[in-house]
């Protein structure tokens, strides 16, 4: 690693909104320069609040944060010069053309004349918007708008780029295109990226390091492979015909955990998640034990551990469940891309 200051360093951030809504309850993160850092969590976990504090929009109740070496509270202006922000909401001017949006954004950072025009043309090319440059943004497709948003965030060549749920609301094709775009950005000399997402697959694919956020703080942090690797062995998912009652559950958990090669079991309504050294070998034993206990199994799958398993392990609940708790109807959608066997 380099000796440069961390791109982002947040210590013990706390933020409470009126009505005693705790958004952050002591969040710590460090983003090394030149890396992509993924903040992963369901809606309402505190990702957006973190981004708002780090981009000088909101003030924490307590805690400290520096971005590109500048304190977000004492030197907000220096932070603003060093960062590019792609927020969840587009924010582009719908009546202005793509080119005009970029020109205005550049002027706000002090770019002028030929320098400005060169930079704008360069970004339009890079984000495949040259043909649409003279058209009003209100006629852009979702994917084009999102690409323009990213271009807006890059106009002044920031040191740190914030991408707040960059692919939410995009169709699968546009999402894949955006992923390629972000991957290319990550290769840019020295650019550090803080990415928030509630798509497990997105974090897995784009981030060098991931912090899983739940209820306002980081529950676990590491590289995607490291996190999955910590869950040694395979994940066996069993689906039961009916949920097991509390009393029987403890007994059953004990019985399953005692089976050879089984490391951990977690009951979650009709679903049982088991970690086993060799998933395929453990299935017959698991089914046998459940049958003896009179519990009917409707499906069994074996998979390499996914980030969903990581989430379940550290946040103590399923990712989809956490999403549902926030009333977010896209929960199933969020889980879907990560559901496939690895």
């Amino acid at each position, binding site marked *: 690693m380099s000796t440069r200051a961390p791109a982002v360093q947040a210590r013990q951030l706390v933020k409470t909104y009126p009505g005693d809504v705790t958004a952050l309850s002591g969040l710590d993160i460090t983003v090394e320069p030149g890396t992509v850092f993924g903040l992963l969590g369901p809606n309402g976990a505190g990702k957006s609040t973190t981004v708002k504090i780090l981009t000088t929009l909101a003030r924490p109740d307590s805690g400290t944060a520096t971005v590109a070496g500048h304190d977000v509270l004492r030197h907000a202006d220096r932070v603003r010069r060093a960062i590019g922000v792609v*927020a969840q909401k587009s924010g582009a001017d719908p009546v202005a053309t793509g080119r005009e949006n970029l020109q205005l954004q550049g002027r706000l950072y002090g770019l002028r004349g030929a320098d400005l025009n060169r930079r704008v043309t360069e970004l339009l090319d890079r984000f495949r918007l040259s043909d649409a440059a003279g058209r009003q943004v209100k006629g852009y497709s979702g994917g084009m708008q999102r690409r323009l948003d990213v271009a807006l965030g890059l106009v002044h060549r920031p040191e740190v780029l914030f991408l707040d749920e960059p692919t939410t609301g995009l169709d699968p094709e546009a999402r894949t295109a955006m992923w390629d775009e972000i991957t290319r950005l990550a290769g840019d000399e020295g650019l550090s990226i803080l990415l928030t997402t509630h798509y497990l697959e997105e974090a897995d694919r784009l981030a060098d390091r991931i912090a899983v956020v739940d209820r306002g703080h980081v529950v676990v942090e590491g590289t995607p492979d490291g996190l999955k690797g910590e869950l040694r062995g395979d994940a066996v998912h069993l689906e039961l015909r009916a949920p097991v009652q509390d009393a029987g559950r403890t007994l059953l958990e004990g019985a399953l955990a005692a089976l050879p090669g089984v490391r951990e079991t977690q009951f979650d309504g009709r679903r049982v998640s088991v970690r086993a050294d060799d998933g395929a070998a453990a299935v017959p034993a698991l089914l046998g034990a459940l049958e003896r206990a009179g519990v009917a199994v409707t499906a069994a799958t074996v998979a390499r551990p996914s980030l969903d398993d990581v989430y379940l392990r550290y946040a103590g609940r399923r990712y989809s469940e956490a999403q549902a708790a926030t009333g977010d109807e896209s929960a199933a959608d969020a889980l879907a891309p990560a559901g496939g066997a690895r």
Partner: protein
Amino acid sequence: MSTAIPQTWYMTQRQLMVFLRQPAYLLITLIQPVVWLFLFGNLFKKVVELGGFGTTTYLDYLIPGVVVMSALSSNMWAGMATLDEIQRGTLNRFLTTPVSRGALMNGNVVSNGLVTALQSVVIVLLGLLGGAELPGGAGGVLILVVAAVLLGTVFGALSNALGMLVRERESIIGINTFLLLPLTFLSSAFMAPSQMPSWMRHMADFNPLNWAMVAGRSAMSGHPDPSDVLTRGGALLVLAVAAVWLSTRTFRSYQRSV
């Protein structure tokens, strides 16, 4: 601070573009004044015979009233545009850039002022086409336009403050609908003060809309009364400064609530 002025101009340009790229909107803003000047004006043109209007034709009397009323009705919707910008994320996008916070607010004030000035001049020109005389000349028109811009600034800033505070379109629509007609009828827009019931006349004295009309009408008459212009104009200026200050305060509280 040296960058605040060009930045204010960029923000102003941006807002003006919204206005100019929606030709339908431009046209609609002119339909109302035409209705007031020519339909209403012709319908009631005999009222000048009652006396106390200080003009020879009703159209001459009506022009300042319609200019000021139009300034009110176009500026009182400023909060809707601000609300759009908040909901679209545009305001937050600007707040994460080093743009001067003052420029964001001032861009609104300046662009609304320019639009109001343009609208006022067009209404006066329409009046001239309709045969108005305007004994006060260009100087009188200028004072009327300034008074209309100040009044527009008062209500534009208040509307912006309301938009940032309540963040609901319905509240702005409700308040505007509630205010527009009473404020207009409790003023000398359509009727000479001497012909108004005395309680209405007294209430009109406290109506900023009426201040702008009195100042403009006096300046546009053949024999302007400098004290009318200065007292009413001064009061409008004070009110405009207070309203902009209030909306800047609200803007700060919006930033804290993000």
